[in-house]
């Protein structure tokens, strides 16, 4: 919606029409509000049959936890998933956009999507915006060429790795991976290591918390395990809620004890 009143709605992409006004407001001393970030611990690991992606579920806005159970593992294609860290709106929109582009690409080529296709689409978009679109991603999937795992940084650089961590809890998770990762792990071993890495982030990093989400992708298909582990249950609620009635007085009258027959015959009762 730009200049004239009869303009058609914009065709997509970013609109910069409020930038001048916002810059003026900032120069007048008003502070820019904080965007919702995902704080986050996100990890990925290549095991014998495919890829396991893991993420925590806390979203923060400044110092406040605004979502205790958000979803950070985003769908890109039936065989490709992507964990997102950084500004939540950016990760959400970038993965949605690449997911649509991949679907169109699948229709155009009549083939299953490849992980490197998603990787190239993501990195060229992020590089084009010179890091202003703040999305740090762990991209993983299995295609005809095998399992792949990549880390994508906000400025558009990528790493191809057997195990990757991103986000504020990445150091805690990487410590677990570096000590416990082995080539060619089984699915159970892989899940255990990924859970341990995410839990390290949840308990030691302030920007990560709540539950562990997992996604296991193999040649045969994918398993999206939402809230696979919930190591932070809420243990202190009042089960029936609170009541606002004011009680003025209360009195308890205990009932008389029944007579117990010690010896002799008990009285017959109807």
């Amino acid at each position, binding site marked *: 919606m730009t200049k004239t009143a009869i303009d058609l709605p914009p065709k997509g992409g970013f609109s910069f029409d409020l930038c001048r006004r916002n810059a003026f407001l900032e120069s007048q001393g008003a502070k820019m*509000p904080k965007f919702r970030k995902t704080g986050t611990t996100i990890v990925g690991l290549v095991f014998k049959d495919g890829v396991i992606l893991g993420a925590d579920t806390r979203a923060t806005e400044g110092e406040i936890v605004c*979502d205790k159970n958000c979803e950070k593992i985003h769908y890109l294609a039936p065989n490709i998933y992507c964990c997102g860290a950084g500004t939540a709106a950016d990760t959400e929109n970038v993965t949605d956009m690449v997911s649509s582009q991949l679907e169109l690409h699948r229709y155009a080529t009549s083939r299953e999507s490849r992980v490197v296709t998603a990787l190239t689409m993501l990195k060229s978009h992020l590089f084009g915006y010179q890091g202003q679109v703040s999305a740090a991603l762990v991209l993983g999937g299995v295609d005809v060429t095998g399992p792949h795992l990549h880390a994508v940084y906000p400025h558009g650089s990528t790493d191809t790795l057997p195990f990757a961590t991103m986000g504020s809890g990445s150091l805690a998770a990487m410590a677990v991976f570096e000590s416990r990762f082995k080539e060619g792990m089984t699915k159970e071993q892989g899940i255990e290591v990924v859970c341990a890495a995410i839990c390290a982030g949840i308990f030691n990093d302030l920007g990560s918390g709540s539950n562990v989400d997992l996604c296991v992708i193999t040649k045969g298909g994918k398993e999206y395990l939402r809230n696979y582990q919930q190591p932070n249950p809420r243990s202190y609620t009042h089960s029936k809620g609170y009541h606002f009635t004011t009680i003025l007085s209360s009195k308890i009258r205990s009932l008389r004890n029944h007579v117990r027959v010690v010896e002799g015959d008990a009285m017959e009762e109807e």
Partner: protein
Amino acid sequence: SIMSYNGGVVIAMKGKGCVAIAADRRLGVRGHTVAMDFQKIFEMGPHLYVGLPGLATDTITVAQRLKFRLNMYELRENRRITPKTFASVVANLLYERRFGPYFVEPVIAGIDTKTGEPYICNTDLIGCLNEPDDFVVSGTCVEQAFGMCEALWEPDLEPLDLFETISQALVNAFDRDAMSGWGAVVHVIEKDKVTVRTVKTRMD
């Protein structure tokens, strides 16, 4: 901060087959209260309401832009929009201005007329959706509001109980914030009716 220039708070809660959305009524210019009847909750359909706390000029502009997009949708599709789709429209409007955003953090509350499912969500100022099962808060006293809602909310509240709960949460939260208050308005949306009540509050 820009978001606390005018002040204001909006809360929405889910109940059993109903949703409630409530807001304060203050409009201020930093410390100076200018109006006590400023509308922050806008009707976008018989079962769909959006609350827009934040910078007041953007509240009004975003409400008008959303109404326009909604009208275009209803003309093109010839049906009412569902709350989930409307949330995507809001998120798109805000993310479009990613590098020069509107200073509002919308709260959406509605009932899907086909399924009867209640729906609430809120977004940050660049359109990141958050769709929890319990309550959403937005505005200058989010910290107080989060505390009140966490303590008072319980699942499956009936409409009258939901009204009591959301009113208590809102009023006690904004009583601890200098920038919001001066009256409260609560909408309780059920499948067959919407009840709008104004609540008596402290006016300081």
